[in-house]
């Protein structure tokens, strides 16, 4: 039995499930919002959901797509007891995720939330080119960076989060070109400043257990998409076509994924006009449909087939 951990709205899960049914691999899907009650029976753990239950021992393979497991436990009203239980609970959850991660899997909850700053360091350790990055919180230093070279700079979020919402407004966080430091205060919240890389095209790479499916995005012909591809251009969409990543770059990406202990993820890169490959980021829970459809890669089928193989390999 395959366990899928995902969120209710995730469309990719649905499409993978169509293929799982076709292949005949039995599956259980748990969405983030589904409350799970655990009970411990001898050497096994029972997961009780609203309309069904299963034993940990029935699970042979796990696909961690996104989200988390929503455990429900009895919590007493007494504060100090509560505090104690919360800590106990944390360890208990850790243990369940650990047990699941011992099974053959595509991605694991524990590794899904990557830290961009650490990833960039590790990427350059394996020999991938990465854009020069600075963490800045002071105007003078920012000014120095901006004037020290001829290259342009941009600022982007450290967490990779795309939106801030409050009751009244939604802000979309996009990568923004930095011209000067004039409008910044003396000291400000630590921000990521990145050297702007001139691109011939961008790459979106879907990586799974050593295999690559890549797409090039030609976006230069139009100004509006130059800095951030999330500023979609509807009239003239970027050109998305299949791409073969050269062998030596693949080797480095595999090394990086091993270092990060990730077996699956979406990787963003830039290819410069000099044909250098610059690594930007990796997202273990990224949408792969946007690479799959334009290139006719059938990635949902690939994921299902791989889960099937994993379930037999053990």
């Amino acid at each position, binding site marked *: 039995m395959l366990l899928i951990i995902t969120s209710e709205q995730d469309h990719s899960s649905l499409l993978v499930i*169509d*293929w799982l*049914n*076709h292949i005949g691999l039995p599956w259980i899907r748990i969405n983030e919002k589904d409350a799970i009650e655990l009970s411990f029976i001898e050497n096994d753990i029972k997961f009780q959901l609203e309309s069904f239950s299963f034993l940990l021992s029935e699970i042979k393979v796990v696909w961690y797509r996104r989200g988390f497991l929503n455990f429900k436990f009895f919590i007493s009203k007494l504060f100090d007891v509560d505090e104690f239980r919360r800590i106990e609970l944390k360890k208990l959850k850790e243990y369940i995720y650990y047990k699941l991660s011992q099974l053959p899997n595509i991605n694991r909850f524990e590794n899904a939330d990557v830290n961009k700053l650490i990833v960039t360091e590790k990427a350059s350790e394996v020999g991938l080119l990465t854009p020069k990055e600075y963490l800045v919180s002071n105007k003078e230093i920012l000014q120095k960076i901006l004037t020290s070279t001829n290259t342009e700079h941009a600022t982007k979020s450290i967490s990779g989060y795309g939106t801030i919402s409050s009751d009244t407004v939604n802000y979309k966080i996009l990568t923004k070109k930095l011209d000067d430091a004039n409008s910044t205060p003396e000291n400000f919240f630590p921000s990521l400043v990145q050297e702007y890389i001139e691109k*011939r095209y961008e790459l979106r790479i879907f990586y799974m257990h050593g295999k690559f499916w890549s797409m*090039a995005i*030609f976006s230069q*012909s139009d100004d509006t998409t130059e800095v951030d591809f999330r500023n979609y251009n509807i009239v*003239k*969409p970027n*050109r*998305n*076509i*299949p*791409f*073969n990543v*050269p062998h030596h770059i693949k080797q480095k990406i595999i090394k990086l994924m091993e270092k990060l202990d990730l077996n699956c993820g979406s990787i963003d890169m830039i290819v410069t*006009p000099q*044909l250098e490959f610059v690594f930007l980021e990796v997202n273990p829970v990224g949408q792969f449909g946007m690479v799959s*459809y*334009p*290139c*006719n*890669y*059938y990635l949902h*089928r690939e994921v299902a087939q791989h889960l099937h193989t994993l379930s037999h390999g053990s």
Partner: protein
Amino acid sequence: MNKKYFNLFANCFIVKGYNRSLIFDSQRMKTVFVPNDMYDIVIKAKSISIQQIYEEYGIDNKEIIDEYFDSLIESELGFYMSEKERDFFPEINTAYHSPFQITNSVLEEMRDMKLYKKVISQLEALDCQYVELVFYNNTSNEFLTNILSLFKLSSIKFIGLIIPYDSTKTPEFIKKICSQNLRLNKILVHNVQVQEKPKNITLGLTEIIYVNKEFTNFSYCGNISKKFFSPSLEHYVESQNHNTCLNQKISIDSQGNIKNCPAIPNNFGNIKDVTLTEAINTQGYKQLWSISKDHIEVCKDCEFRHICTDCRAFTENPKDNYSKPLKCGYNPYTNEWSEWSTNPLKQKTIEYYNIETS
């Protein structure tokens, strides 16, 4: 960037016809005609450099060759690349895969509620995604509401409805069934014999179409027209080795007979006696699924063949599975469109099929 090689973007496809070629951009859903000379050069450019093309065509032709490439660059259908980049850009893999046994179905004049229940569960067993319900005779609003509600808990994702007009089919009623049935993605109302024909509109995800003509049998179907062309990647990929109308389709005609299409005589048993799964696994059922345009007479020489729809029920030669669709007015040898229904050469076949053309 040096301009040693030229490459058409992999999602722009060039299709050679008898007199001219068509490039269709599956991403931007656009098409352009180009001369067949250009087709040959674009294909050559996949394996040799631009310099080698000059040499092959003679340096006198350099200007025209440059013009060809520049025009493709200008319309953003391709790009120049360096030697090193040649290995970077593969063609799109055109394999077609579907997790479903049946993707679409037609139920003709089906009125028995019990039968619906049985058929829906049999369609679910085949993973059917789309059901088209076709009615020629009067359908009361209550009846329609009832059958639509039978689909509510099913795994069928989309429903198309073809019904005759009557005065109770008011915009309010149409709106109501759309909002109650999010699966409805098409409603076609025929026989609209009123002075002011309502306008075609899209309500949410439902396309609503009104036509004057009365449909009395399935011969309303099978028209080939520019407006049905589909320059999408999905269609292109399926069209490589499959019939884009009949692949993964199942129909039950007004008599309960299971067929590829209600208008195709071959009968694979009656729903009273056999299940849909049994029917599609009967020898011969899937034979028409793999008749692609590349095998069809005339179509195989047509530059539209990978964006065009097809029809196997009404063909110029009813005895031949590989004959051109009867209801196509295009001639790829002259590149002219004309009205098919008045073509004197087609009259006998039109009579044979008993198609009302006026």
